[in-house]
């Protein structure tokens, strides 16, 4: 499914946080949102997912204006993975993934065959199928993040939004999570901090600065020393990685 945003503007009180952002994501594409702290990545992601209402502008998912789609119907097409969401409740792995079926169930409906298939497939997809009864509290950071992705998959979405899914994970789990998301057969939009990870896993990258789109294009086109200097205020060398042809960024201490 395609995601198209037109002239999105959003702010709190008189401070504008997202300034006139337009972008478009093709079906099946993996789009990275990068930018310094406070550049509006998280806010833009929430606007695109329909969790916040823009002050003006609109978002279309598969040609439909999401402001016109009821919340529940939207949640059957669009999943959102928060950064490190946690709970004190004593839920199991299966309980958490079952929550993903919420938008597909009516208030009193029983647990259907389709629900069970979706949950089983989602758990298998993140390789946690054998751990259904394990309590949430005993999972590691990487396992929790995988479980959140499984829950999002159980929604059977066609678009997935992820807000810094690799936060607080070690490098192995960062790569594992992003590889998993890239290989999913759906459109995904990921807010990321790590520029090299964005270069490795995203088809295209949007660079945000102060809430506006500063650059947009393939990793090689966007991640130039000039942009990195202007937006992130670092000096860096960018070299092409020999295997993938994707850019590799080396920061210099100056």
């Amino acid at each position, binding site marked *: 499914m395609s995601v198209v945003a037109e002239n999105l503007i959003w702010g709190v009180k008189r401070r504008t946080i997202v300034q006139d952002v337009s972008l478009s994501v093709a079906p099946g594409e993996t789009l990275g949102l990068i930018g310094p702290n406070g550049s509006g990545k998280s806010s833009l992601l929430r606007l695109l997912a329909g969790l916040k209402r823009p002050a003006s502008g609109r978002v279309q998912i598969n040609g439909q204006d999401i402001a016109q789609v009821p919340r529940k119907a939207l949640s059957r097409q669009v999943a959102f993975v*928060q950064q490190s969401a*946690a709970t004190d409740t*004593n839920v199991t792995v299966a*309980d958490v993934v079952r*929550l993903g079926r*919420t*938008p597909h169930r009516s*208030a009193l409906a029983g647990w259907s065959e389709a629900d069970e298939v979706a949950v089983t497939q989602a758990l298998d997809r993140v390789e946690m199928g054998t751990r259904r009864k394990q309590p949430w509290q005993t999972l590691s950071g990487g396992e929790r993040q995988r479980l959140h992705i499984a829950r999002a998959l159980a929604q059977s979405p066609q678009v997935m939004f992820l807000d810094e899914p690799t936060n607080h994970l070690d490098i192995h789990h960062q790569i594992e999570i992003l590889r998993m998301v890239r290989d999913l057969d759906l459109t995904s939009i990921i807010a990321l901090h790590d520029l090299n990870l964005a270069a490795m896993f995203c088809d295209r990258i949007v660079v945000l600065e102060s809430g506006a789109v500063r650059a947009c294009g393939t990793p090689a086109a966007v991640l130039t020393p000039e942009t990195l200097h202007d937006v992130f205020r670092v000096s860096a060398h960018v070299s092409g990685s020999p295997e993938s042809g994707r850019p590799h960024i080396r920061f210099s201490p100056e």
Partner: protein
Amino acid sequence: MSSGVSEDGAARLVLFLCLSLVALIAAVAAATAFGDYNIGLRTVFLSVTNELGLTGAEIAPIEQSVIWNLRLSRALVAALAGAGLALCGAILQALLRNALAEPFVLGVSAGASTGAVCVIVLGIGAGSLSLSLGAFAGAFAAFALVALLSNGATSGPNHTILAGVAASQLFNALTSYIVTTSGNAQQARDVMFWLLGSFGGVRWPDFQLLLIVVIVSFVICILMARSLDAFTFGDEDAAALGVPVVRIRLVLFGVTALLTATIVSMVGAIGFVGLVVPHAARYVVGPMHMRLLPACAMVGAVFMVIADIASRMIATQQTVPIGVVTALVGVPFFAIILYRARPQA
């Protein structure tokens, strides 16, 4: 078709509900039989079937009257009050995502107390009806204040809890002020007894009103049980799962306020049931609300009826306020929750 996992849970829930129903019937029978003077269970049973027109057994009118008009109505109101308070606790713990939340966190009982004290001490209106109305008005005033302070409960769970604490302090201060400046010794004693809760004086009309309120609240809560589950990882997560967060919050806070206000206006401020019961029920049927809410209602009902029996049996010739009994059980439990909720090293 259900999965293996949910079938296990469902069978367990049904078994649990059946057992607690048996326990409830036994507790209500015991509450009707025991008292200042004990009446045989056989007489209790025949008396009830007499009233329902099923039998025509000979029973002394005084016993008939004690059983039917005093004890049975009291036991059934206790059961409903326990069920309602436990339901409120479960809802608030889910919405505020806080293990220590219970109805009184919203300051509703403090508001109800102030309303009741206005009636008892200041004599605004007279008679038991106006006392209930006063309590009811106070409860909703407190609720409105909390809603105002926390922007309609949209500014986060901690904010709502702080607003509740502020409202409780304010209304408790008002209550103390009114009692100390205007009350006499007898009034102070009446107020104190009422503040700690008492099932003395409840009659069938109370039961009928409470039954309607509890059933309506329960149905609304069950219809929203799935949505409550979606709050496990917070408001935004619930919204991402398609739940209309603001509407669910307002409706369920409203239901909680209505239930608490109705109960407090009838039987006073009975603490800790709303806190203790949901935690106990969660151990047995798990945290998902479609199972938790019915379990809470049953456990709360049984707990309150037993607490009421205890309140009449602990001291001879005297009834200990029910709030004292629930607190004596509740505080140790509260301590256990605090201990378990400490940060894991």
